């Protein structure tokens, strides 16, 4: 088994294979996700975010690392827990919060909602709320790249719980047999909605221990270390682009918040959250930057800029109008309308 965080920590300093500029980018992405998700939670409690929302607080390093290693044109396929991956591809906080706040300035003008964030221009090819559905879809996008000789990689994010649904296994086999340029990323945050994954899974590593069934390497990494994630992602993308087929990566991580909405997560054993918070990905990364000699001032400036972006986005969204009724029946069919009869 390749526990790749070991390799990652062997880096030789700020100007190693990742470098200063990329590290600052990875830091900024993580902080952006942290601040935007925290804001989404606050707005939910104020009843300004309605319906549901699934936060990635504590899982920021996975989104930042995988997106940070992508090239323009690479495609992301996300779940309902997809705000982080959408932001990580460069979609604005305003567009994301606007959608969560069901405003006309939202990414999909309120027609999709929190669970279906999509920004085709940024390569975010949808967020899918039926567990496992998007793994085969990512295979199809990768098939297109293979067929047309295009070099983009399709990257599919999902949780530990998703490894027990049929579509996961169908997609893994399919991708392996067809040697598709797709990367499957399992964010193992230890829980499904409320049930610990270990209670309902026959193997210890829900994704990693299944990799061998599909002829793939078992890759389990520290999902709270953005450098480890970034390096693993880069290697998987290189493999995909070189025509050497899919990868399945299990990232060990933890969500600081509940599953969704205002879930207080009472099902967690005492002390678990606190232990994981000691391994908070943003804390880890901040320490790394300091250790590499990046000044506290630089880091604080990023923090302040991000907070400002999130504050401004919040105010813009609060002031934004609700969607107009005339979009109710648009885009059901490709002609722009909804006519099912003449």
């Amino acid at each position, binding site marked *: 088994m390749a526990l790749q965080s070991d390799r990652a920590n062997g880096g030789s300093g700020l100007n190693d294979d990742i470098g200063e500029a990329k590290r600052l980018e990875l830091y900024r992405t993580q902080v952006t996700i942290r601040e935007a998700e925290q804001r989404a939670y606050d707005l939910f409690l104020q009843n300004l975010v309605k319906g549901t929302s699934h936060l990635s607080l504590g899982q920021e390093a996975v989104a930042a690392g995988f997106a940070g290693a992508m090239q323009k044109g690479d*495609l992301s396929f996300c779940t309902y827990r997809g705000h982080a991956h959408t932001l990580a591809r460069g979609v604005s906080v305003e567009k994301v919060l606007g959608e969560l706040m069901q405003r006309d300035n939202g*990414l*999909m*003008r309120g*027609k*999709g*909602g929190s669970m*279906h964030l*999509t*920004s*085709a*221009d940024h390569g975010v*090819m*949808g967020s*899918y709320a*039926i567990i*496992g*559905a*998007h*793994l*085969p*879809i*990512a*295979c*199809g*996008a*990768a*098939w*297109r*790249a293979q*067929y*047309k000789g295009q070099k983009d990689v*399709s990257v599919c994010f999902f949780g530990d719980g998703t490894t027990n649904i*049929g*579509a996961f296994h*169908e*997609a893994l*086999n*399919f991708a392996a*047999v*067809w040697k598709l340029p797709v990367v499957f990323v399992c964010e193992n945050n230890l829980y499904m909605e409320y049930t610990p994954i270990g209670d309902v899974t026959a193997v210890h590593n829900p994704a990693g221990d299944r990799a061998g069934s599909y002829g793939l390497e078992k890759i389990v990494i520290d999902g709270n270390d953005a450098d480890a994630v970034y390096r693993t992602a880069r290697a998987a993308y290189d493999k995909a682009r070189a025509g050497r087929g899919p990868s399945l990566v299990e990232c060990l991580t933890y969500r600081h918040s509940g599953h969704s909405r205002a879930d207080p997560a009472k099902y967690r054993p005492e002390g678990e959250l606190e232990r994981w918070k000691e391994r908070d990905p943003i804390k880890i990364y901040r320490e790394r930057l300091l250790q590499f000699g990046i000044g506290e001032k630089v880091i604080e400036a990023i923090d302040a800029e991000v907070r400002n972006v999130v504050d401004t986005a919040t105010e813009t969204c609060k002031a934004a109008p609700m969607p107009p009724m005339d*979009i109710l029946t*648009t*885009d*059901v*069919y*490709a*002609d*722009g309308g*909804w*006519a*099912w*009869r*003449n």
Partner: protein
Amino acid sequence: MVEITYRDAVIRGIAQEMQRDEDVVFLGEDVAKAGGVFKATVGLYEQFGPLRVRDTPISEQAILGAAMGAAMTGLKPIAEIMFSDFFAVCFDYIANEFPKSRYMSNGQLKCPLVVRTGNGAGSRFGAQHSQSVENWCMMIPGLKVVAPSNPRDVIGLLAAAVRDPDPVIFLEHKSLYATKGEVPDGEIVDTLGSAKIVRPGRDATILALALMVPRAVEAADKLKAEHGIDCEVIDVRSLVPLDTRTILGSVSKTHRLFTVEENPRLCGWGAEIVSIVADEAFYDLDGPPVRITTPHIPLPAADILEDAVLPTPARIVDRVKTTLNG
């Protein structure tokens, strides 16, 4: 003009579109090297090669999911689901994914694909390999649903489906694969959403789909010859979009409506059409519309039992005759 089977029309239809457009690709179980379990794709692998005609594992979700991912990023996939009954194991794509991605993304995502499938009874395969599932598909906003009854329509509607920018469910009837019909030479392209009057008449309108079309025509011939009742038979062809104009036009002329549906009774397509006619042409009707359907039971396997439940020409004749003559 040449006479070919419905089965060969499927092959010709797919080939016509693959020849025209390199983005058209085809995948399914046993479809490539083996030519399909119904032999409806024989020769395509040889003609278009292993990159465009691909055998898949027995993974219906992977087949439809992959078709969708390819469609949203630039290909025009044709996916085969061997038996339409298997829609039940990949229904997420049919119900939740294909038809909703465009809407939910506010028009950012597209899904131009065709799902071909063997639908319908008559093969004595029993309850899990014989169903008519058109009503499973018709009820989902965002899908288009067509079901050809003859070789010419197979080619023309398949071409229209492949060229259509929306997801289309293309229901081939298993009991029609061996039937023959004339098709013109050269390219054939039809339009989705158009019903066809296959037998004009004045006394009653009979709507039918797929295998029920030849049965309705046979019944109409008998009704004319033996009972002097002149029925107009309409091949509905496309359930979504639905050609209500042709249907309402016919009812306004004949003042009587019959539907002949192979699906089990509840929520059959005929119920929707009857409700439209009741809404919009009630005063054109001289009597209550009549639905002739398979009863609301799972399909039995034995030939004598299966034959007893599908609408037959004799049953259609009987229902029309007793309804009109009191």
